[in-house]
């Protein structure tokens, strides 16, 4: 009679960390982590020692001191007596503003150019190729400079609007295009204006609700409701009616030439316009290529099948091709959004007060706290990039092919 016994349990030996495949990967990772930690510790202590030798120290106290300088575009309250931290916030908001605006326009431009690049019209197709190739292959820095220089040199200065026979006049007496920026009327919020705004928000929700209902009806019964004109009607009519019912509570503050500059209205500064425009057209060219790649990734049979059902080419694109192309388009699109945000740090070229201009520029310079400012800048850009990436990945997960 034989007794079956378990094979003798191998006792753990140190060498197994290296030779046993079960442990090796963990060992390698631990070693890599240790090396990384050591490298960072070494760099950090090196910086610390060198600073101490020069009699300097790391301190963030300067953030609480008055900044002492003025900023040309402040969306939140700021004076030269505000703290450096407040100046940094002004910069952060300016960065986010230009990045947000540029992401929207670059996407619109990119999708249009990408779709048109596959157009059957020879002229349109070639024009779009020229646009993509020119903008993609010349550095952004140069585009920003070109656009800003053209703006300052070719547009009239505010004093061209002055005098009996001015050489420039305002467009419709409400818009002034100058080399310092564009001046547009600003709304004045009178009593009761909140009701109008509330109506407007409600009608936006209404548009979405209507479209949802129409889609549901289409899927359930196959009856196609008109989409476009009811959407417009819901969007505009209630707000306009409410505006007159409340007795026109929202007025307009027109820009007027007073002293050296236009006063009143809203000023959209030339630096913002130049940076926004340059970022949009430059990144738009890259997005166009992503869109083209996405569309070409959709099998030809899909559009042929859709055409066989009798769909017109516009509907084929919007209902069949683009939804499938999206899952190819979105991942590289995330990168482009990150690029826009990071590239906005070139703002200093045109004197736009973004975070690199305020915290990483003037504050750094005036306080001499280079390491602290750069660390804060890195933390800011890292946070923003990871946030964009996260939000866009959520969207990506929502649109990607559902595999069941």
């Amino acid at each position, binding site marked *: 009679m034989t007794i079956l016994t378990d094979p003798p349990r191998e006792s753990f030996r140190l060498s197994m960390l290296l030779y046993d495949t079960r442990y090796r990967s963990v060992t390698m990772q631990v070693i890599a982590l240790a090396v990384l930690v050591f490298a960072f510790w070494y760099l950090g202590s090196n910086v610390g020692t060198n600073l101490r030798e020069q009699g300097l120290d790391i301190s963030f106290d300067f953030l609480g001191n008055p900044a002492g300088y003025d900023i040309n575009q402040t969306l939140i309250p700021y*004076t030269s007596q505000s703290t450096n931290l407040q100046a940094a916030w002004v910069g952060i908001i300016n960065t986010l503003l230009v990045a947000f605006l540029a992401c929207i326009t670059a996407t619109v431009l990119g999708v249009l150019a990408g779709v048109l690049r596959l157009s059957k019209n020879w002229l349109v197709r070639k024009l779009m190729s020229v646009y993509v190739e020119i903008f993609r292959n010349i550095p952004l820095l140069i585009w920003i400079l070109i656009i800003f220089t053209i703006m300052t040199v070719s547009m009239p200065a505010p004093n061209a609007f002055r005098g009996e026979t001015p050489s420039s006049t305002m467009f419709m007496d409400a818009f002034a295009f100058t080399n310092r920026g564009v001046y547009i009327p600003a709304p004045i919020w009178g009593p009761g204006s909140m009701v109008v705004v509330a109506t407007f928000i409600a009608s936006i929700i209404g548009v979405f609700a209507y479209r949802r209902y129409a889609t549901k009806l289409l899927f359930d019964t196959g009856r196609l409701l008109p989409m476009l004109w009811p959407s417009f009607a819901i969007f505009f009519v209630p707000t306009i009616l409410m505006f007159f019912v409340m007795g026109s509570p929202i007025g307009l503050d027109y820009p007027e030439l007073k002293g050296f500059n236009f006063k009143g209205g809203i000023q959209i500064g030339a630096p913002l316009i130049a940076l926004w425009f340059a970022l949009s057209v430059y990144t738009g060219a890259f997005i166009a290529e992503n869109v083209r790649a996405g569309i070409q990734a959709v099998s030809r049979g899909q559009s042929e099948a859709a055409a066989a059902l009798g769909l017109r080419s516009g509907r084929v694109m919007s209902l069949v091709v683009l939804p499938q192309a999206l899952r190819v388009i979105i991942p590289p699109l995330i990168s482009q959004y990150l690029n826009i945000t990071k590239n906005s740090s070139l703002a200093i070229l045109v004197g736009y007060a973004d975070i690199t201009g305020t915290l990483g520029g003037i504050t750094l310079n005036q306080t001499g706290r280079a390491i602290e400012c750069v660390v804060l800048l890195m933390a800011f850009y890292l946070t923003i990039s990871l946030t964009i990436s996260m939000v866009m990945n959520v969207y990506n997960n929502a649109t990607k092919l559902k595999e069941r």
Partner: protein
Amino acid sequence: MKKSVLIGTLTVAGLAAGIAAAGTLDDVKARGKLNCGVTTGLVGFAAPDANGEWSGFDVAVCRAVAAAVLNDPTAVEFIPTTGKTRFTALASGEIDMLARNTTWTFSRDVDLKFDFIGINYYDGQGFMVPKALGVSSAKELDGATVCIQTGTTTELNLADFFRANNISYEPVPIETNAEGQQQYLAGACDTYTTDASGLAATRATFESPGDHVLLPEIISKEPLGPLVRHGDNEWGDVVRWTVNALVAAEELGVTSANIEEMSGNTNNPEVARLLGTEGTLGEMMGLDAGWAKAAISAGGNYGEIFSKNIGEDTPIGLARGLNALWTDGGLLYTPPFR
């Protein structure tokens, strides 16, 4: 055995590093070249000509120091710096000294750990406007758009001036003087502000300088001078006394024309000490006896440098004003050479 070798190597490396960090003077001598930080281009103060030769008031200081240390006024590497990069360049050792119309302020001296070795130009911040604008005083600039070089003391003075006078303005931050000039001429800003000397220098390069006026207000004190890193006192002494020697030379009547004659026979003992025919001033600093002679020969004494680069006979046309010798009613005064 192996361990001791490693430790030995580390010790030697550590010693070498300690020595290397110690003396800028020795570094410059060993390199045979002075790394001098200047502006990216401001005519009269520091700008390269068509052949790439740098010249100007600040450049002359670099050349004088190079002549004093290396006996060769051309042994200078000119490193252009902007308002933003200048201090990092100096602190990191990329340049040995900075001669770049930099204002001597408390925080730069104390907090940023630099040593200003003296003042070679007494300046103040002014405004330039087109004549057509019809402005005669800076206090009339309410609501104006102002071009300003970012990262400078002028940026802070500007904010203080407008706040103190309770008027508003819109800043247009720019990086270099050339950019400021372009923006100003295109009318993207109503007025350009920087040191009055810089404004005069900029205006001199315009096609029609007469169409632009400098406003009478000088809104700040801008004592400009060369600076070095804090803590290297030997090197600081060399730069300080080289600049002093230029001023002393003017005071004592030593010019680039008569310097040979004066060093041969002079009955003024201070001149003899300055030019190294008597005493051991050069030796005390670790330089040749003829250090000051070489420095003065490089571009002349202070007065000669001034009139050659920015004086009234040049397009820039600055009067001596505060920058005259103390004997002529100015502020220039050097400690004695003894």
